[in-house]
């Protein structure tokens, strides 16, 4: 489910990845915590081990307070960027995928119930038909969503009179977007042309 990754938050990423070269905030605070704890241990030499450990824990908690405080303030100062969630007809793709999974599982369970002799054949036929209808609808929705953008792009290119430049991971025969390193298309099953 590659769509899950597309809903990743930019903010949660901020703390980890603001400038890969420089010291990241959480590293700074961990370091501060470690230094603080070392100093505390040094200063409280006379005390019992349990007390020293607790003091160090307090220092680490203080470091955590620092990280969390930064986490509170950062979103307010950083520039807000628009939401990057991929939306299909008002619902995110992830939701559709999950719904499909649920319906498929329900069908499975129903078949299982019948095999266990709990559901009469008539009921089974009716319920199964309804669930399958729902699953088919979801699959169709998902299929449609996956192809739209690529189809539109190809249309535009065609009108502009250019030959479509092969996009990484785009199936040449059905325009389904696949992972970049896919060898076969997940939509039509045909072999993909490998890009160098």
């Amino acid at each position, binding site marked *: 489910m590659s769509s899950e990754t597309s*809903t*990743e*938050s930019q*903010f*949660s990423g901020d703390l980890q990845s603001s400038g890969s070269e420089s010291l990241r905030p959480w590293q700074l605070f961990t370091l501060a915590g470690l230094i603080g704890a070392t100093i505390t241990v040094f200063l409280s030499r006379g*005390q*019992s081990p*349990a*007390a020293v450990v*607790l*003091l160090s*824990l*307090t220092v680490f*908690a*203080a470091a*955590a*307070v620092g*990280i*969390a*405080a*930064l*986490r*509170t*303030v*950062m*979103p*307010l100062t*950083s520039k*807000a960027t628009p*939401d990057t969630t991929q939306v299909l007809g008002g619902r995110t793709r*992830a*939701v559709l995928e999950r719904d499909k999974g649920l319906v*498929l*599982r*329900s*069908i*499975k*369970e129903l078949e*299982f*119930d019948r*095999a*266990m*002799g*709990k*559901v*009469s054949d*008539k*009921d089974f036929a*009716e*319920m199964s*038909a*309804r669930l*399958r*209808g729902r*699953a*088919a*609808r979801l*699959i*169709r929705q998902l299929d449609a969503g996956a192809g739209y953008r690529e189809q539109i792009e190809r249309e535009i290119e065609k009108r502009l009179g250019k030959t479509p430049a092969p996009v990484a991971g785009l199936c040449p025969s059905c325009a389904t977007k696949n992972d970049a390193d896919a060898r076969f298309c997940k939509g039509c099953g045909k072999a993909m042309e490998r890009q160098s």
Partner: protein
Amino acid sequence: MASLGYYLLLAAFVVAAYAAAISVGGARRRSRALTESGIGAFYLVTAIMAAASAVIVYAFVTGDYSIKYVQRYSDSTQPLFYKLTSYWGGLDGSIMFWVSLLSAFGATAVYINRERHRELIPYVVAVISVVEMFFLFLMIVHNNPFSTYLTQNPSDGAGLNPLLQNFYMVIHPPTMYLGFVGLTIPYAFGMAALITGYLDDSWLRAVRRWTMISWLFLSIGLGLGMIWAYEELGWGGYWMWDPVENAGLLPWFTATAFLHSVMVQERRGMLRVWNVSLVITTFFLTLFGTFMTRSGIVQSVHSFGQDPVLTQLFTSFMVGMLVISFGFVIYRLPLLQARNELDSWLSREAAFMYNNWILLFSAFFVLFATMFPTLSEAITKQRITVAAPFFNQWMIPIGLTMLLLTGIGPLLAWRRSTVENLRTQFLIPTLCGLVLGGIVVALGIPFWSAGLCFAFSGFVLGTISQEFWRGARVRQQTSGTDMFTALIGLVGRNKRRYGGYLVHVGIVLMFLGFAGEGLKEHETLSMNPGQQVKVGDYTIQHDRIRVTDDGRKQMVTAEITVLKDGAELTKMYPARWFFRKHEDQPTTEVAIRRTLAEDLYVVMPQFDAGQQSANLEITVTPLVNWVWLGFGVLALGTLIAVLPETAFAFASARVPEAVKAATASMILLAIVTPAAVQAQDGGGRVVKSQAQRSLEDRVICQCGGSGCVRATLTNCNMRPVCHGHTALTAEIKSLLDEGKDVDQVLASFVAKYGQAILAVPENKGFNMLAWGLPYVLGALGLVTILLTARRWSRPAAAVAGGGDTQIDPSLDARLDDELRNLD
């Protein structure tokens, strides 16, 4: 240190307020920045609470007795372990501990769900923050754990209550709290769904696992409390319907009901208002439980004393919470409308409704009976007592019904069960029940209630085995593996269902243990060294009394030899410990010899070190350990149910791989074998003056000692050193010797001591309410269910013919493909 801690609490309050305000603001203005800042602040509360906790534990470890709380609940001689756990030994600290746990739990829940349920998260943060704010407010204005002595710092602490210096007491409160605190998460998500109006099933999916985890903690907490009572209080039982025990049980009932009815909503989209209400009720009951313990409105072993300010604060918070929550439910009623339809009275949906009815009724009954003395005192100004016998009278039939439903529910199909279905499904379980019940009754166990309990247990076990067996067979046929791999694959693919069945097995084991409770034998003996007495199958011989001291406490230990059939079985050492500074509260150290069939339980309430003689109370309780075993199985089942989807993936291989199959079989054997060890029944019964026993069961001990509130004479844990106990038993004996019967004795007791002496209130005047109301409400509930079901049911003819059922063949083939791959 103390002022640092106090400032941390203040800071936590401010930050929680900020988190609540800014996340609501962020959600309303659709500003991601504000919402994210709110989440950050929410984490910040957790960090601050961690720091504050570290500070107070540090104060305990270093013995900073200028802090009142530290001074009151620890002393310098305490081992480190108990110093750490003194944190939650008293009221103020336990509130703080509560907030810390809530913030940690809440932060985890928010962290996990922040992307998946982005629309709900701001309100989840706000709701949890408001709850945190309430408890922080309590601490800041009223129960500050960091308050210090203004002058004259004491040089040493008063020490933790000796009853609490016990391993189970160390882990019991945190587990209970985790359960209680965890149930705040479903409430927060439910409220967020109500506020935002995103009332599809997504919030249910978010909270299902959290509810299960909290439920697990709550169950284990209750179990640990029972073990603690059994091992530490020394009256031979484990549950006496103490208000605080009940407080833990109330949300357990409603959470169980929720875990069941949530399945109906997932499968059928029904009962949506009901589920939201259950979540709110559960949260309310956790608050109410805390309130009952902390404010002292009911008498209990656990209570910390009367506190009117706390009562007011708590009451206003609870009322506010109820009004706002249900206000939102009513406001969102249009969105909660569901297509409720019931095809048949004999369907899984209907079974879940009966299940909810019985669970809710239990919750209501326990709540009502717990609060009845308070209610009665407020209205009639007469103190009465509602103790264990009253609860047992009611809860035995309720419990049995619940057990029976546990067996019936899984056998019914969703929507409709035909007669044919019923025959094939019920045949084996019913036979199991009849056979087990028959055997047990033939062995001489009374039909009501123990025999019936065995029969129902047999029925439920039959149901569950049949489910596992048939399921595994179906899977074996489709996958072609061997039986064991199929069984594990079955559980792996359907963890919630089969984990749930395992939980049911745990419940059955517990019920077997409860049935054993009704069959116990009890003897009180006074013995000199060398004397022998026969109790049940055992011969008890008192050897001597030993007095030792380990610096913290003086220990008086009796040495006892237990013989069976003339051969020495074991030695047992019941004792009493006198902790320094708490000499007036000696603890009872119980000696227990455990077997699967029965426990030999020896207590030494009284001794004479000079004469080397001891009073011994010996109880033989059959099947107690099955209760603990049941809790273990329940925990295992719940863990399987909450495991992530990918667990057990190894067993989903379709072609049998010899190695895997072999290991799988071995794992299963290892699990199954210990459970299948001996299950023999205890022997004959010793009958003791029936009238005396029944009176001791029905009269409340008047000693008023700490730890002896609302206990009957048989259960009073101070006995028989307790002056009240000795006097009352002597009085009963003399009255009986005068030739009076049980009722006459009770009447004279009421005349002398007032209504409060009766464990079961008399059925007259205002008290008739206690007897009548549960009946009325139970019936009312049932009628409501029947009426609702009637409204929802539709004629069978209308069932056929769904809407769009035409799927084009290519899609159909693809669907089949995906279904096959799902395995």
